[in-house]
């Protein structure tokens, strides 16, 4: 019974182990193809999530593992992300000196961690899942051992990641000590039975520590400092997986802790969430302005996005949560498209540290490869939040949820705070227009372009780009299907 619940995770882990074994019999020149094989196998797992009969809601492993609509949504999300990242890795293969199969396998193990995180229902599962993701990413970030930037990014991620893990375990210890249980629903039940628990200093301090640690995962203030350095130094596919997978895992855990375990306390901490959201948006947007390195720019943009996700959370209504899921859906295609283009375009300049990943590399891209130029332009426009693309609709829904909270009669005390937050969010959008369009400008209107040789595109890369472009446009033009899905999921899970 228990084993059948974690069938998808088992499949992913077995796939990773199989890949490591296959490596022994594969000649070096053909190892690159293993990534595509892994991507295809993951595609099968993704199809299986639609075909295999799945319980509506089931709990296993002593209440630690929960399979519900939200878990399924995020499992599919992570699978799609991992498939696109694996394709990106095969494009990146020539820049990995040794251990290519491990490079693929580690992404699969991180994926398994994320899928477990989507189902976490107590603090033990939360901790183990989060550490499986983080420790894997330490290795992935520093995978280009010959490149100093990569090693440095790995060490920075290591120290700050371990620091956030330290906060996490101490927070868990305090919450466990005051409530006497690790399980999210049981904590909620204890608060229900005894309201004074939620106002105990130690309990609140524990929850805040846990939230800070999860804030590290989504790159929100005050644990945002690692993001730009790590995104810049890590191998491009790893940055992409960090931006999408790791962030979404943080979001789902934050939702589980705040809305399942301490819904009461979440209501009282609205101000805290609002301040974190506002500061995160402003920090990300303002610091992105002077950046010339595109991966660093995307690092800051990822911080700003974390701010928007927190904005949805601070709205404290189900529409806000549904908007978060929608925003993540659009974010997946947008960010992966951007990183895939970066990965392909920077191939020629790999190893030259001085101008690696400089925005100037994209000069004349529309003549070198119209498809790459279209994908990157759409990604930037979508991230900036211009209609009719996915990013616009996501931000629109998030702000709409905050407006609803501001105008609802039971939030009168926070009304002015909500309006300030909306103003901050809109300011962030306006600032972001400037730096995203800097990239678009570099693509189409650069002077003195040197290299105009066409860029060859492999079939898998081409297909992934089509998928990303289709995703960005579809989610922007026909928001209905996904919106119905996220609304249904959220209403079923957080009554």
């Amino acid at each position, binding site marked *: 019974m228990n084993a059948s619940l974690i069938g998808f995770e088992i499949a992913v882990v077995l796939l990773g182990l199989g890949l490591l074994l296959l490596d022994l019999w594969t000649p070096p020149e053909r190892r690159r193809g293993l990534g595509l094989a892994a991507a295809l196998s993951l595609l099968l797992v993704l199809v299986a999530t639609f075909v295999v009969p799945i319980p509506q809601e089931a709990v296993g492993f002593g209440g630690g593992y929960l399979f519900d609509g939200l878990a399924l949504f995020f499992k599919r999300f992570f699978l799609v992300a991992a498939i696109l990242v694996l394709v990106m890795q095969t494009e990146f293969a020539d820049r990995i000196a040794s251990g290519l199969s491990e490079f693929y396998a580690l992404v699969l193990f991180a994926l398994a961690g994320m899928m477990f995180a989507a189902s976490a229902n107590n603090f033990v599962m939360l901790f183990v899942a989060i550490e499986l993701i983080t*420790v894997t990413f330490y290795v992935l970030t520093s995978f280009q051992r010959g490149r100093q930037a990569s090693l440095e*990014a790995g060490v920075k991620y290591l*120290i700050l990641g371990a620091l956030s893990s*330290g*906060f996490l375990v101490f927070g868990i*210890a305090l919450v466990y*000590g005051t409530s*006497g249980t690790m399980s999210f629903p049981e904590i909620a039940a204890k608060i229900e039975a005894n309201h004074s628990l939620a106002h105990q200093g130690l309990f609140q301090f524990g929850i805040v520590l846990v939230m800070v640690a999860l804030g590290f995962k989504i790159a929100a203030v005050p644990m945002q400092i690692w993001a730009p350095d790590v995104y810049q130094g890590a191998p491009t596919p790893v940055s992409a997986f960090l931006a999408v997978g790791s962030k979404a895992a943080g979001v789902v855990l934050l939702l589980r802790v705040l809305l399942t375990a301490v819904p009461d306390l979440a209501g009282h901490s609205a101000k805290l969430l609002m301040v974190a959201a506002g500061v995160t948006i402003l920090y990300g947007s303002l610091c992105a302005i*002077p950046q010339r390195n595109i991966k660093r720019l995307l690092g800051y943009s990822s911080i700003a996005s974390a701010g928007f996700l927190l904005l949805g959370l601070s709205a404290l209504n189900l529409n806000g949560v549904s908007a978060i899921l929608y925003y993540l859906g659009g974010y997946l295609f947008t960010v992966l498209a951007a990183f895939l283009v970066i990965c392909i375009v920077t191939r020629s300049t790999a190893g030259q540290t001085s101008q690696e990943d400089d925005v100037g590399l994209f000069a004349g891209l529309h003549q070198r490869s119209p498809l790459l130029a279209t994908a990157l332009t759409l990604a930037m426009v979508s991230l900036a939040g211009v209609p009719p693309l996915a990013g616009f609709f996501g931000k629109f829904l998030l702000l709409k949820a905050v407006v609803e909270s501001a105008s609802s009669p039971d939030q009168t005390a926070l009304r002015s705070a909500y309006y300030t937050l909306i103003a901050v969010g809109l300011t962030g959008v306006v600032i972001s227009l400037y730096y995203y369009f800097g990239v678009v400008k570099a693509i189409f209107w650069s002077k003195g372009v040197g290299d105009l040789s066409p860029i060859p595109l492999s079939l898998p890369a081409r297909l992934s780009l089509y998928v990303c472009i289709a995703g960005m446009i579809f989610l922007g033009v026909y928001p209905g299907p996904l919106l119905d899905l996220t609304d249904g999921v959220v209403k079923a899970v957080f009554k």
Partner: protein
Amino acid sequence: MNVGLEQYLMVSGLLFCFGLLGVVVRRNLIIMYMGLELMFNAANLALVAFSRFNDNLDGQLMVFFIITVAAAEVAVGLALIVALYRKRQSAHVEDLTTLKL
């Protein structure tokens, strides 16, 4: 003197603060890493104490997971620091200057 929950928590809190102080103040990566381990063990102590005084074994179970995960983290972390040392001949944070604005 009777040792109660408060005493254990006091020690655990002190250990956590020392660990955090070590990470924030010291500039050598290995020492910083030791500070981080101290923070983990502070949490372990608190968990075991709570577990003992709550008559509930969940906390002790969590400690096993934390020890295992911390061991994995140290294995990866030290390998990384050694790799960086080979490249730079230094394990000081001030020398991590490749990635800047």
